[in-house]
């Protein structure tokens, strides 16, 4: 109780420096937790985000490009695959399902992807979860109809019955006159429920729609950009990997999807490390500010410390009180750091969702919620030892005044 009283009163007496120091610690804590949560969650989410597919087959390219293109709808397609290749793949006894994807157009920046209706009627994008149509229905093959992902519908402001003309190319140029619009008119017939997958950002149309869009090369009208593959036995992926990647030279079989994404995160691991290092540096600087703040107040505290010693306070009580004060400032900072953390993570999650459709959960608990505040308090306690030693050494007689 006495220790807490000493700490509480000291914090109150030096309120301004307490607030400023706690704020710098909250920034450090918030940054550290955000960087850690983001990199951990992003890796986990992207590695798990396979859309319920085991592999992607596409034109010869890197596996990563295929996965980013077909699963995350981010990269450009490396080329087309022929109908015969698709048929061969579908006929393979190891393959349970194949869904073609055709790309090449957008509507106001949202990618238009041609596919077949079984993508929405039969396929489970996660265990036990199929795409659900929130409003309307799935498009019909052979018709100029569109089914919108939930995020795309919300951002485009399109409703059932609305019409639109696709733009050529995967990206929408910032200067409207640079965009070439197709003459074909598509009608929105359905809107999907949010699946929290990249599919939410897509305008889905029948695969023939992309293939036959005016301006596309008629010679490749039967080609598709990629095929999403579901295997009967995941181990069969090894044989298909051998078949397409080692023995063949026209196509690439990206399998398993999670491993391909893990390789991406391994490649950009240095970026994580830099961010984490910056966050730790901020934490160390914040801890140093605790040291400076308490140390600089020692002259003003000298008399109070001497009075406490004259009342019988042991040196170790004074020492402990200073350490406890530094730790308490860090605890306050860490508590406020959660607000900073959630604010930053909300911003980052919103950006990730806008760009990829992948959902990062700001409130998903992680060990970082425990170890980051503990580390911050440990650093502050360590920093507190410097002023604590100074307090430990206060000369009682000369600090009490006046003498007679």
């Amino acid at each position: 109780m006495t220790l807490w009283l000493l700490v509480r009163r000291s914090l109150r007496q030096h309120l301004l420096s307490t607030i400023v120091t706690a704020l710098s610690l909250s920034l450090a804590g918030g940054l550290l937790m955000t960087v850690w949560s983001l990199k951990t969650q992003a890796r986990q989410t992207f590695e798990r985000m396979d859309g319920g597919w085991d592999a992607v087959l596409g034109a010869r390219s890197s596996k990563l490009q295929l996965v980013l293109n077909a699963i995350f709808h981010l990269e450009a397609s490396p080329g087309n695959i022929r109908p015969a290749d698709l048929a061969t793949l579908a006929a393979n006894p190891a393959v349970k399902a194949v869904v073609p994807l055709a790309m090449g157009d957008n509507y106001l920046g949202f990618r238009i992807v041609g596919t077949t209706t079984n993508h929405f009627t039969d396929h489970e994008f996660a265990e036990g979860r199929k795409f659900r149509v929130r409003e309307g229905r799935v498009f019909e093959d052979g018709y100029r109809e569109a089914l919108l992902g939930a995020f795309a519908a919300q951002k485009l402001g399109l409703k059932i019955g609305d019409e639109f003309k696709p733009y050529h190319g995967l990206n929408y140029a910032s200067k409207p006159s640079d965009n070439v619009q197709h003459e074909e008119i598509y009608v929105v017939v359905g809107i999907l429920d949010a699946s929290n997958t990249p599919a939410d950002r897509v305008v889905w149309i029948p695969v023939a729609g992309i293939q036959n869009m005016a301006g596309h090369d008629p010679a490749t009208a039967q080609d598709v950009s990629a095929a999403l593959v579901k295997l009967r036995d995941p181990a069969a992926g090894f044989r298909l990997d051998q078949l397409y990647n080692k023995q063949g030279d026209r196509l690439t079989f990206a399998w398993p999807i999670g491993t391909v994404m893990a390789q991406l995160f391994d490649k950009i691991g240095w970026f994580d490390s830099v961010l984490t290092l910056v966050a730790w540096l901020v934490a160390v600087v914040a801890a140093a500010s605790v040291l400076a703040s308490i140390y600089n107040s020692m002259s003003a505290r000298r008399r109070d410390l001497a009075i406490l010693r004259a009342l019988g306070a042991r040196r170790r009580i004074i020492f402990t009180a200073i350490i406890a004060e530094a730790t308490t400032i860090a605890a306050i900072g860490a508590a406020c750091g959660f607000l900073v953390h959630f604010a930053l993570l909300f911003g980052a999650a919103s950006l990730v969702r806008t760009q990829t459709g992948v959902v990062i959960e700001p409130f998903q608990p992680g060990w970082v919620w425990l170890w980051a505040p503990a580390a911050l308090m440990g650093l502050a306690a360590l920093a507190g030892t410097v002023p604590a030693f100074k307090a430990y050494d206060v000369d009682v007689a000369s600090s009490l005044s006046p003498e007679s």
Partner: protein
Amino acid sequence: MSLLEIRALQKGFRSPDGHLQPVVDIPEFSLAAGQAVALAGPSGTGKTTFLHLIAGILTPDAGSIRIDGQEIVGMTEHGRDRIRANAIGYIFQSFNLLQGFTCLENVVLGMSFGAGANPARATELLRRVGLGDRLHHFPRQLSTGQQQRVAVARAMAGKPRLVLADEPTGNLDPANAREALALIRETCTENGSALLLVSHDRDILGAFDTVPSLADINRAARPQPARA
């Protein structure tokens, strides 16, 4: 047996020219349990140094100080802290109240390091000295006389065996000074504490039966004979 026994106590400070200036040189002094003694001494006669030595705040150059039979000269700092916390109540001339703490907290801290924090007793003591309605006031919100009463309550909080009072009425007007002294003596009597008070205030000293001069016991405080 005496509560406080002092033998051949010496303490000096070095002047800027390196000369050792004796401030305390007391061959013998004792105080019985429950006894109240006032020592008269003008400024500069080593009053504070003498009381600091007894409280273990300063260490002597030579001699012996026994409190309740325990020798404190040569004792570790930790040991002296414990003696101060458990056996001594100190009333300072300038009160030395902790400005960032309320009256109640100041008194609680007076007992925290020895007998243990007891807010109920601290409250009772402040009521006893007439500050029951000022428990949560800070020292700066009190008059000088009220601050003095807080200092008295704090010194008495741990029921010390020995109370040291250094010019306890030095900052008070005569009426408040008399009231403060009465309070100190009264609470010392109630607690069975011995009181060693040093002051140069004649009015205050007049309240004691016998008032030896500090110079009578401290050879360093006596006027030095002029050089021939």
